């Protein structure tokens, strides 16, 4: 019956296979080869690249990546929850506030990261303002450290946390809150024992949605961390440019991808409400 529909899928099959699946297969292939003397790869089978991943030097980078992504996700949750709560209770203005949260996300990732360079650098707005007020004499080292990277990630991915939190808070039955109050629960107790447990799916979804892009972050640590704050993404990029070790870069890329996929799978299995 639907032969036309099968034809309609053909172009996307071709693109997906040739420009996504085959390239992944090629780095899988490369990750088992040996690096050439002048970059590239030579056909010499070896699993050295994977063994090198276990080297403490790279283990540290992976740990740092997890640490930075974890802190960023936690901050997004702490900052995003009250905002989502406020929006879910704003009646007719909900859509306006939601648009205000989403809009910056779509306007140029690069420009939004540059905005923080502009604010934080030695000659940036914050240091210039503090100096002209006479509060400090030499610029504070605000840029090129882990704090700046975390700030940039929180700023970039906060909308990913607010949206699923809002979705669960929106569905929360206000009668439950009244019931809690009638039964004598103080607002703090209602928050901790009624709202938060009911929002657990939204918190989980938001955390996954923030944590995963933070794990794969490249541009934010590159610009705001300035080479000092190396994350997994920067390590991979470096293997393909300066270090010219494609097999090792491929192995690291696949390891990162495997971690991302495991996290997603674990989450999708626990996602009963279809928040993703």
């Amino acid at each position, binding site marked *: 019956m639907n032969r036309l529909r099968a034809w309609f899928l053909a172009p*996307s099959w071709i*693109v997906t296979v040739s420009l996504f699946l085959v390239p992944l297969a090629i780095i899988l292939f490369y990750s088992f080869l040996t690096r050439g003397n002048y970059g590239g790869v030579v056909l010499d089978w070896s699993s050295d690249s994977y063994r090198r991943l276990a080297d403490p030097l790279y283990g540290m980078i992976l740990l740092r990546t997890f640490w930075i992504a974890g802190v960023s996700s936690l901050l997004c949750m702490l*900052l995003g929850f009250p905002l989502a709560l406020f929006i879910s209770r704003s009646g007719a203005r909900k859509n306006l506030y939601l648009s205000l949260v989403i809009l910056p996300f779509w306007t*140029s990732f690069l420009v*939004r990261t540059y905005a923080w360079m502009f604010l934080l650098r030695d000659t940036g707005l914050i240091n210039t303002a503090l100096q002209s007020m006479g509060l400090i004499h030499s610029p504070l080292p605000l840029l090129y450290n882990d704090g700046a990277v975390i700030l940039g990630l929180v700023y970039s991915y906060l909308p990913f946390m607010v949206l699923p939190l809002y979705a669960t808070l929106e569905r929360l039955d206000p009668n439950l809150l009244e019931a809690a109050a009638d039964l004598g629960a103080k607002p703090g107790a209602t928050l901790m024992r009624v709202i938060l447990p009911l929002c657990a799916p939204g918190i989980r979804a938001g955390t996954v949605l923030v944590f995963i892009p933070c794990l794969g972050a490249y541009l934010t640590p590159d610009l705001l961390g300035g080479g000092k704050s190396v994350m997994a993404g920067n390590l991979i990029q470096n293997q393909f440019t300066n270090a010219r070790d494609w097999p090792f870069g491929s192995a690291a890329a696949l390891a990162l991808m495997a971690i991302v996929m495991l996290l997603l799978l674990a989450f999708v299995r626990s996602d009963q409400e279809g928040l993703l």
Partner: protein
Amino acid sequence: MKGGRRAGLALYAVFALLFLHLPLLILALFSFNASRFTVWQGFSLHWYQEAFHDAELAESTWNSLIIAAVATVLSTVIGTLCAYGLWKRRAPVLSNSLYLSLVTPEIVTGISLLAFYQWVFRFLHVQLGMHTVILAHISFSIAYVVIVVMARLRTVDAKLEEAALDLGANEWQAFRFVTLPVIWPGVIAAALLAFTVSFDDYVITSLVAGVDSETLPMAIYALARRGVSPMVNAISAVIVFGLGVLILVSERLRSA
């Protein structure tokens, strides 16, 4: 007491929304600064003039527009056909691959495409350039198009097409004259979104671009790395404003 908490929450929300918007607003404000330094010295359009007359920026903007336009048209066509094909006929491998391409870190997509191109170049006599960037952009935009068009298709009553088929239309005519007009706003919304993600991409593009295909984000990255020039603020303001308008139109069309 209750009112006080409510006010506290509202005050917090104001600060959170300022956190999201203020950095870009300040960036844009200082694009109108007469001084090169981060001290306000009066209104001026000097940096816009300088950015406008910069040959490198002009060329990279032109490249970005060509790449985004071609990639948008192709990914919208391919993605719309794909969404329609997936509408009722399940293809789990294809749809899972598309979702996977969305969550794959950009740096991984970028280096795998680079490795793929270098491998293909062993057999063909070509080099990295506009074409490799365009192909990469088509590949990562399709998933966005499929998701937006699919959302629109879910609101379409399948009986409309059945009626068309009963009345003697063939499958192509039922798609072309019944379903496509109904989902058209979604298709345009998807195209605007595809244009935005293509025009803005830095990570994948920088890996697969050749010497003659520097894009605007690559030029901005280089300027941002070099140091302070309010020229970057000026271009940034234009980009944020332009893409912001596209996104607002896209949102409007999607909720229409």
